[in-house]
């Protein structure tokens, strides 16, 4: 038997997912220990971590990087398999060339909806809902826990739903599959809780990168929407896993971007006006889409329990009906339709019709609880909107606008920024999938406009709306990104306490303190370091040393921490129990004092005072 103190898997209990249909949880039911957070589990985990820290203190750190590569490779492989599964199911259910008037367009999504509903309710309850929010929940609530069953369930149910024509995308499930793979691997290697938590976003980045064939966008999305902040500790692993997964995906799919992008150039700076119009339309459309989803989803979930078995099937019939009556383009991922729009194969009237029909189809599919993601529909709607605006402008102002394909491309980014509220990702996503940096200006302009307009019209982002509807309180990444972080310079005060050097005698220092009535003072030492001494400490030292002794002989071996004005203010807080005050130094000139901090100064700043 292995040593019980390092029993692998001792923390994570067996998968204990429960259906919970009446509560309709959209997020994975966590392991009992993680959900309850019982002190005994926490203590066991802490004890194990302490043991591992002692016998192998750098193990976590090294495994973290190695496992990131494994996670990337496995996630990439699984995402490729997932995409192939979707395509196979699509061929088997909808045929190789679905077109209006085929009854299979009605039958396939509805029958698949019934099967998916049964699978989700009876076997894979955690497969329902947004993979992004589930990954965030794993990170913030469940210590990085995503069950193996969830991964399998997400794979099967999403592939079946999307392949049979439900208007959903594979990226969101891919993200969750990646996060799940990471969670399983990390749990089985018994990493520390902190590391365990960070693995879910690393896997998410890998899954998304493989799905988009765009590593930078995936990393940025995870940082923007899942982690919420840039962290050097996790960035390396994110990059490793995303790159590994993309290498695998490209080994299979080839180096080409997700879409075949026609040659695009911006002919005239005045064309930016046309792109700005697109940004405005995108900014107006995104909140409409959010509102429809936000309205229908909770109402369908509030219906009696038995209807949950039928909702995906009914949604399937309705989506199929859209296809049956002449718009099969809205069914499934719609990648090929995006490709056609990028190559100007539709007139603007058709493109506009596809915008609204896809919104309707996606709202029905997603709100019915059918597993699948919002990324591909968002790209689809954006591409159609862009194409419609571009084709319209080109028709009426032929000298002002460039290719229609360029507008479709920018349109994808516009809705990504406006609807998913990830402005940085939206820019890089378009650049990565197009491989064309000459269009960066229109993208930035249109995306920024869409983002600002959308946010002003609909302050709550779509992911936040879903988490609120699910009764969870996950951090809003949009707010977190824009939250003003206080720095030391915000609470910095001029050094008003006495400053002495290490060679000054105790007698002289004592005299200075007596004259100034200071309760503490700063000592500068010959090596440029500082020491903050209280008057009481000086009194104690005076009792054991002669008055002529230099003050440095009275100092403890430690020194005040190196603090600089640009550091986060909270980084200073935990030093105050030890030091009465803290010197703040200049980064450019070693040992040079910029000012000082006291606990009162810090607290006053946090309370809002100056």
């Amino acid at each position, binding site marked *: 038997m292995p040593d019980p*103190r390092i029993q692998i898997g001792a923390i994570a209990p067996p998968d204990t997912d429960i259906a919970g249909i009446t509560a309709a949880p959209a997020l994975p039911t966590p392991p009992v220990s993680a959900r309850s957070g019982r002190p005994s589990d926490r203590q066991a985990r802490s004890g194990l971590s302490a043991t591992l820290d002692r016998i192998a203190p750098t193990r976590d750190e090294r495994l973290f990087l190695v496992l990131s590569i494994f996670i990337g490779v496995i996630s990439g492989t699984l995402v490729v398999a997932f995409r192939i599964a979707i395509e196979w199911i699509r061929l088997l259910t909808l045929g190789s060339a679905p077109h209006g008037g085929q009854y299979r367009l009605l039958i396939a999504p509805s029958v698949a909806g019934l099967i998916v509903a049964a699978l989700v309710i009876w076997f894979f309850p955690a497969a329902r809902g947004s993979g992004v929010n589930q990954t965030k929940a794993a990170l913030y609530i469940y210590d990085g826990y995503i069950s193996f069953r969830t991964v399998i369930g997400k794979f099967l149910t999403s592939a079946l739903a999307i392949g049979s024509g439900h208007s959903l995308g594979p990226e969101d499930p891919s993200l969750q599959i990646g996060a799940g793979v990471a969670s399983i691997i990390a749990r089985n*290697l018994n990493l520390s809780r902190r590391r365990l938590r960070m693995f879910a976003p690393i896997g998410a980045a890998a899954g998304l990168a493989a799905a988009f064939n765009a590593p930078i966008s995936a990393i940025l999305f995870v940082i923007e929407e899942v982690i919420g902040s840039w962290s050097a500790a996790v960035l390396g692993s994110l990059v490793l896993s995303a790159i590994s997964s993309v290498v695998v995906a490209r080994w299979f799919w080839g180096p080409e971007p997700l879409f075949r992008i026609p040659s695009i150039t911006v002919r005239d700076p005045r064309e930016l006006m046309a792109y700005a119009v697109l940004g405005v339309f995108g900014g107006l459309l995104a909140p409409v889409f959010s509102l429809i989803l936000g309205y229908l989803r909770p109402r369908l979930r509030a219906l009696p329990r038995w209807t949950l078995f039928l909702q995906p099937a009914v949604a399937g019939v309705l989506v199929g009906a859209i296809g049956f009556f002449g718009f099969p383009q809205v069914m499934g991922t719609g990648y090929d339709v995006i490709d056609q729009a990028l190559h100007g194969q*539709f007139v603007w009237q058709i493109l506009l019709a596809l915008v609204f029909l896809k919104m309707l189809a996606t709202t029905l599919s997603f709100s019915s609880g059918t597993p699948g993601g919002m990324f591909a529909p968002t790209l689809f709607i954006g591409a159609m909107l862009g194409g419609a605006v571009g084709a319209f402008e080109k028709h009426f102002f032929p000298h002002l606008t460039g290719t229609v394909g360029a507008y479709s491309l920018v349109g994808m980014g516009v809705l990504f920024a406006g609807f998913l509220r990830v402005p940085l990702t939206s820019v890089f996503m378009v650049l990565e999938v197009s491989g064309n940096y000459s269009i960066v200006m229109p993208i930035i302009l249109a995306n920024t406009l869409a983002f600002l307009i959308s946010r002003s019209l609909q302050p709550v982002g779509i992911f936040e709306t879903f988490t609120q509807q699910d009764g969870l309180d996950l951090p809003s990444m949009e707010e977190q990104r824009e939250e003003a972080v206080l720095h030391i310079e915000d609470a910095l005060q001029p050094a008003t306490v006495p400053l002495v050097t290490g060679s000054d005698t105790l007698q002289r220092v004592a005299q200075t303190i007596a004259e100034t009535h200071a309760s503490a003072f700063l000592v500068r030492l010959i090596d440029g370091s500082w020491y903050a001494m209280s008057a009481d400490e000086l009194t104690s030292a005076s009792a054991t040393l002669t008055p002529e002794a230099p003050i440095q002989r009275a100092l403890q071996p430690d020194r005040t921490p190196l603090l600089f004005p640009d550091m986060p203010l909270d980084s200073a807080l935990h030093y105050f129990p030890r030091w009465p005050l803290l010197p703040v130094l200049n980064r450019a000139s070693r040992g040079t004092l910029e000012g000082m901090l006291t606990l009162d100064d810090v607290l006053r700043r946090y309370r809002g005072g100056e």
Partner: protein
Amino acid sequence: MATVHAGAILTPEERLARRRLILRDAFSLISLFLITAILFILTLLLFRSFTNHREELGARWKTRGEIALHAGHPEIAIDDLRSALAYVPSRDTEIELASALADAGKTQEATVYFTTLWESAPGDGTINLQLARLAAKDGNESQALFHYQSALDGTWQGNGYDRRREVRLELARYLIARREYIPAHTQLVIAAGNAPDDPAIKLEIAGLLEQAAAPRDALGLYRSLTARADPPIAALEGAGRTAFALGMFRIAAESLRRALAAPLATQQPDNEKATVHEMLDASQRILALYPAFDLPPRSRGERVLSLKRIARERLTECAGSSPAAPPRLASLVSRWDQLQSGLTPPELEQQPELEQSITQLVWDTETLTAQVCGAPAGDDALLMRIAQNPAAVEQE
């Protein structure tokens, strides 16, 4: 991997635990590697079968689309080619799809599609040609001419030489349809200059030159063909027709005679043969009437007098039918009155200037009476043809 801090002093129990941890981690990583490898192989198998199936589907839909397109079912071809593109994207299929859209009358969609293709390859001859056709269909002449010219200057897959000539001829047809004969003539002259020694091509160009009101160039091409050992009957007919139109009746008669004597002449449509016969008869009669310079002086004099008689009768008839003769006709009558009566061929033989002036009077009479009294008939009609370009009658 499990490692030990340099400064850490471990108890024997901890060292044992550390060894077990190292073994466990190694085992975990090896297991992970094996799982990855197995997963990869399974995915690879799945991917290969999927890729092969996609390629089969792409090829199948492309073939169906092309068959439908060539069979004149562009609507079906559109769906098929779109499906083909979804499985195996290719530029050729895109162009075929856009062509199907154009053939199906979806001009706007086809234009948008071709424009997008053009923006990525502005020098592509096929795309420019299709855009030119769409613009022509849309009545946008400037765009049509721009794209026709771009197609001529562009790149072509396969035999660009032939494709460019076809484009040039298509451009010429477009210009002829718009009655812009001068630029059409220019294009046809270039096409003729670069044309290979292929009777069918030369015949096509010559036919277009005729339509572009350039019968002389057309005749040149026809005659280059009639000089061959086994000239095409169409070339003989074309040469006869254009020569007849140009008043070159000797050439016309010769060519038309050969056309009717050609082995394939019997297979020609009856109405076509009748036309050829009519032209040949007219040409032969003209040559019989015309006082050619290579005739013996006596014979020529006889012909001049014969023409004089025909023209005089025509003038008399015309003047009698018009109660108020116009001043020009009166002037003509005056010229006739001044003419010496009772002239004989020997007298004319002695007075070549008189012969010349009589001949000129005949031509003037036929021309003026045709203007005053309407189109003549019979020999007068033939004389009228000669009168338009008397010098051409005997050109070789």
